[in-house]
């Protein structure tokens, strides 16, 4: 959820809640006030009527008032309490039943008992209450609308430096040698944040360069002695005076040195991929790449008499570092070749955003989930470093690709999904 939307929606919800509660309270207070008011009116009318009855002849008013809101009856016995109830009565003007509040009380004038009924129309006060309520609602709504836009405008303005920094960070890559610099803002918190970011980025860049230098230096330092050992052994192997046994020992040493240097290469490559040192990406047509690699490997497949079936009509284009793309395809093809039978099969096919490599071969002797781990070998083959598929996995991870493995119909199936 976007920051703006989050703030705005929370703000809106809280405001709506407050307005609703306030509205309800207001509505009921208003009702209560009107009730109270009507009660007051009824009471004052009662006092007036009692006074009137005491001062005037009772006969004249026994018929009630002309507006049919006061009715007076003579009764036999006096009752204690006055009652206030709600009722419906016929309104002459409106010609319909409208709500009235009715007060019934008894009083004694000249030893005569009277029951007096006063009717007070509620229609005006209800109308009043409704009008006030509607008016307030509209007012609330307008305030809400205004607050919403003002708030959005304000937060847009206030957060602008933040979004500027964010877009700068988004476009920044660690491999960029240029220093990132944020604009001065008029908000001190953002200035602080920007300064911290600048410091962090500078530190990261230094660390990255150090790391890069270290990996390359490590490679240099290890490869040079290895080169010396290898070349000395090669010279020795050309010595004609060696005995068979000496020659065999030398050969073993030579082979191990070769393996060591391959391991070193592979581990360095892994750390370089993990350190995201391959940043330059281009769109690589994987189908074209596979075809050209296959051409190169044609012979190796032919020698093992592997039946190749290639279906690469659907183009798969992936944005990736070209060197990594090369290594990725090399490793997958090598894998399909190395672990294949003589007279085996390799089926390569492409779908939309998907390339499948299916090859025959002995079923795995290891847990398939461990297949992509480092130094895991299916059979302890001496030539294999056990890093090929680990490198493949790292390349996929670094380029947001997926590599799936499953075994079905006696085929090892690797699927590359972009």
């Amino acid at each position, binding site marked *: 959820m976007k920051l703006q939307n989050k703030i705005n929606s929370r703000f809106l919800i809280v405001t709506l809640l407050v307005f609703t509660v306030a509205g309800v309270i207001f509505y009921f207070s208003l009702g209560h006030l009107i009730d109270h008011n009507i009660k007051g009116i009824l009471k004052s009318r009662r006092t007036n009527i009692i006074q009137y009855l005491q001062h005037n002849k009772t006969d004249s008013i026994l018929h009630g008032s002309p507006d049919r809101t006061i009715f007076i009856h003579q009764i036999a016995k006096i009752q204690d309490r006055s009652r206030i109830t709600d009722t419906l009565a016929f309104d002459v003007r409106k010609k319909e039943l409208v709500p009235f509040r009715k007060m019934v009380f008894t009083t004694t004038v000249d030893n005569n008992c009277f029951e007096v009924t006063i009717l007070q129309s509620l229609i005006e006060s209800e109308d009043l209450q409704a009008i006030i309520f509607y008016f307030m609602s509209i007012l609330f709504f307008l305030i809400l609308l205004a607050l919403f836009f003002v708030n959005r405008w304000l937060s847009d303005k206030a957060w602008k430096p933040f979004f500027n920094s964010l877009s700068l960070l988004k476009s920044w890559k660690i491999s960029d040698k240029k220093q990132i610099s944020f604009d001065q803002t008029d908000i001190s918190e953002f200035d602080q944040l920007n300064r911290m970011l600048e410091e962090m980025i500078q530190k990261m860049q230094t660390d990255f360069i150090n790391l890069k230098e270290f990996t*390359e230096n490590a490679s240099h330092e290890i490869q040079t002695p*290895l*080169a010396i050992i290898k070349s*000395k052994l*090669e010279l020795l192997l050309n010595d004609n005076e060696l005995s068979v046994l000496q020659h065999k020992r030398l050969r073993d040493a030579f082979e191990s040195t070769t393996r060591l240097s391959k391991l070193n290469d592979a581990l360095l490559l892994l750390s370089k991929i993990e350190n995201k040192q391959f940043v330059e990406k281009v769109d690589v047509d994987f189908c074209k790449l596979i075809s050209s690699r296959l051409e190169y490997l044609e012979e*190796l497949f032919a020698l093992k008499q592997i039946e190749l079936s290639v279906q690469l009509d659907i183009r798969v284009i992936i944005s990736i570092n070209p060197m990594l793309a090369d290594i990725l395809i*090399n490793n997958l093809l*090598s894998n399909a070749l190395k672990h294949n039978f003589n007279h085996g099969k390799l089926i390569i096919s492409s779908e939309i955003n998907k390339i499948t490599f299916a090859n025959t071969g002995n079923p795995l002797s290891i847990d398939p989930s461990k297949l992509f781990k480092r130094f895991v070998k299916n059979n302890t083959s001496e030539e294999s470093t056990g890093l090929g598929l680990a490198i493949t996995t790292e390349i996929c991870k670094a380029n947001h690709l997926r590599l799936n493995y499953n075994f079905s119909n006696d085929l090892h199936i690797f699927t590359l999904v972009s």
Partner: protein
Amino acid sequence: MGLLLKKNTVKILVVEDEKMLCETIISYLEGEGYICEQAGTIGIGTEKINLYEYDCMLVDIGLPDGNGLSLVRELKKCHPDTGIIIISAKNSLDDKIMGLDLGADDYLTKPFHLSELNSRIKSLLRRRKFEGQKELIVGQIRILPENRQVFIENELLPITKKEFDLLLYFISNPGRVLTKESIAEHLWGDFADASDSFDFVYSHIKNLRRKLLEKTGTEYFRNVYGTGYLFE
């Protein structure tokens, strides 16, 4: 040997700070009949290329007093005809591209096989000295490297691309034991350990050997204790 390169005139400068490696390279190359000189720093290297003329320079990128690429630049200025091979421990694509852009002819990553280095030097000298038009004659075998053709007694030998590469590699390193590893790497590069490549080396050599034996009646290849092969 029947190579038409006048070996006694080929001078090579090896610029490498690692003494032992430098000695090994020189000892191997001197065994090939080249005259070699060594320089351990850019300073000495610059001095030498300004004083003498070399046919080829091998230069390490990481030198104690700077980047070997500056020496490439320097050499291109004073002797543009000298062949340049960069040897580097950094398998870095940037360095490789930059080196080749500056005019280097080849790029080898450490550790390399001496036989590979030798074959690259030979191919470089062939291209540089004779503008590519050169034939190599070994016994009854005549090779036209530029056309990638092999003739036995004026008869074209049907040969595959890989077999040709293999033959040229052996002819560049006569009388040397070529290990299976170096042959596999020479033929398939990064794919050398892609497969049971030693079997393939074996099968390629078997085919080549058979073809040559049929036409010439001579056994050129010798297996050396399972380590590799020798071309005689």
